[in-house]
């Protein structure tokens, strides 16, 4: 792969810390074998998008197999100060933000391929000083062709999203990566710039088919006094990697990263987080949770970097795992590079099973075993699901988690 400067960029190696748990060779061979679907003729209807991604009330941009679908999208009447659409150089606004791609550089072969081969890029721009009340929803649907002549090969897409939030603005974003049954490879990149004193609430929900391969990279650039909260939910995919890189460039920025992976069957879910404190008085929290059943494997690598010369850094990280079967595996690895003195930093990790005493307590009150397990699993991940600020998304995610885990569906609104 060639990078922007023309140099050849290789796929990463599992010798690199950030790729240690990911089966890179397998992903690369799946990428090589996958085929790009033609831009037309998909069978995705509005009802399908509603069912897979939910309708959360705001503007919605929908991409099918990496290609923008105007019929499925709704972003004609957006609030003043908000622009969303495609990265089309003919559009002045978008052009300005393709310049943002200056911070959206490829750091590995997967990103280089995303930038080189992606069809359409979603762009969301918020002008300075604007507060947007409705969430902007960017939906990527993988729709493999299971019947045609391509039935034997996986469908590939390279979704790319660029989000630029102006100074003092506030916005909520929802990104959904979902899909129809079948084999698909999604190689996704997202870049978010959070301007000075801007606030972003970002939910990333990945519910692709269990035959899908997902490589996701989210790069977040935060300026002075900005606040970002990201909730990431990883449920789908056979092999799925969710990388989040946060760069705190300006002082007094705050970052809260919350995530859950619900892993079962033979799924592999890797979460790789880096928070880079390059400015003083920034605060970051990483709270990641895994629920792993059957032969699933979940991993979490969380890196905290505190640059020399910074002061009053507050950085916290926790990773809790619930392992539900003897064959399930959870790997967790903190990775701290503290290069300054004035730092308050904590990290902790746990791997545990369901509490037998709690299970017996619930069952002794008449609650069947399955439902008791569901209640306890739901309680374990409530920290994450409760953090989702949109009730419709909260309900949507709870239903998908329940279905994926063979759990009894419970409405989180009722569990309060």
């Amino acid at each position, binding site marked *: 792969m060639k990078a922007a400067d023309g140099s050849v960029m290789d796929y990463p190696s599992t010798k690199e810390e950030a790729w240690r748990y990911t089966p890179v060779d397998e992903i690369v061979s799946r990428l090589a074998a996958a085929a790009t679907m033609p831009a037309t003729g998909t069978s995705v209807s509005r009802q399908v998008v509603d069912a897979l991604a939910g309708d959360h009330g705001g503007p919605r941009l929908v991409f099918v197999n990496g290609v923008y679908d105007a019929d499925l999208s709704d972003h004609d009447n957006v609030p003043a100060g908000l622009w969303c659409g495609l990265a089309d150089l003919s559009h002045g606004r978008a052009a300005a933000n393709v310049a943002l791609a200056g911070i959206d550089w490829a750091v590995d072969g997967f990103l280089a391929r995303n930038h080189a081969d992606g069809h359409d890029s979603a762009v969301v721009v918020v002008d300075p000083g604007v507060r947007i009340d409705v969430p902007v929803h960017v939906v990527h649907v993988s729709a493999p062709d299971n019947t045609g002549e391509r039935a034997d090969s996986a469908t590939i897409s390279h979704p790319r999203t660029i989000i630029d939030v102006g100074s003092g603005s506030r916005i909520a974003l929802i990104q959904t990566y979902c899909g129809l049954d079948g084999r698909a490879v999604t190689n996704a990149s997202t870049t978010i710039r959070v301007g000075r004193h801007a606030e972003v609430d970002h939910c990333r929900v990945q519910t692709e088919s269990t035959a899908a391969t997902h490589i996701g990279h989210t790069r977040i650039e935060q300026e002075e006094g900005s606040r970002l909260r990201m909730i990431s939910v990883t449920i789908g995919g056979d092999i799925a990697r969710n990388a989040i890189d946060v760069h705190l460039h300006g002082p007094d920025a705050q970052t809260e990263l919350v995530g859950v992976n619900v892993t079962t069957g033979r799924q592999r879910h890797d979460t790789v987080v880096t928070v880079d404190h390059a400015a003083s008085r920034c605060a970051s929290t990483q709270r990641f949770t895994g629920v792993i059943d059957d032969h699933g494997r979940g991993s979490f690598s969380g890196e905290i970097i505190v640059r020399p010369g910074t002061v009053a850094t507050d950085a916290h990280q926790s990773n809790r795992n619930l392992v539900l079967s003897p064959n399930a595996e959870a790997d967790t690895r903190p990775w701290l590079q503290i290069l300054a003195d004035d730092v308050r930093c904590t990290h902790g990790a746990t791997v545990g099973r369901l509490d037998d005493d709690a299970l017996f307590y*619930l069952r*002794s009150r008449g*609650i069947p075993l399955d*439902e008791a397990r569901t209640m306890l699993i739901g309680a374990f991940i409530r920290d994450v699901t409760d953090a989702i600020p949109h009730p419709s998304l909260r309900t949507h995610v709870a239903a998908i988690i329940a279905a994926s885990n063979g759990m009894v569906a419970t409405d989180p609104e009722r569990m309060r």
Partner: protein
Amino acid sequence: MLHIANLRASIAGKTILNGLDLDIAAGEVHAIMGPNGAGKSTLANVLAGRDGYVVSGEATFEGVDLLALAPEDRAAVGVFLAFQHPVEIPGVGNMYFLRSAVNVVRAKRGLPEIGAMDFLGVAKEHMARLEMDPAFLSRSVNAGFSGGEKKRNEILQMSMLEPRLAILDETDSGLDIDALRIVAQGIERLRSPDRSMLIITHHPRLLDDVRPDYVHVLSGGRIVRSGDHHLAAELEANGYTSTLAAVPA
């Protein structure tokens, strides 16, 4: 109603219950007392279906073999255990938990589901009698509750679930005098001709408020002496060792 014959239970190779016999008829309240390690809590746990014990013998409730049932099915036929140490379950709301339990048990008894508003009304009535703040409903199950609050929450659950056989495992332990009175009154209110109770206690104090029909002494995994409520007074006055020594086995 409850018939226990030659009940044996061991855990990790250690025998705890060693041929226990006990019959409780409908409407009767039986108290079981005994020194530490006698097997009192094991009896309660084995009847409610806790895992981990190797159990043999007989325990039937209205002819149904309890030992063959999962804990939730025992609850459905009307068995309720008030825990000695109620479990804290952060993240599961008390109201959600309680309403789920009530509705599951109602469904198994062929009764219609109780709606949220009706449930809330009934729960608040019971809570008022137990001098519990309704705010406990919106908290997680037992999480951060004081010892007394947990025990009241047990009695609340018992009141809502309306069991046929209530087993109270040291419900009085750790309570101050006021809490003991409230809990005792809660138990006494549930006394009824079609509900049997098995009260496990260390202290005869509770039995002043909830007078049992029978008192049994459990020692070495079996019942070694039975009597009426006067036996509790005798134990209080003389202690287990001399009370048991005074009577030839």
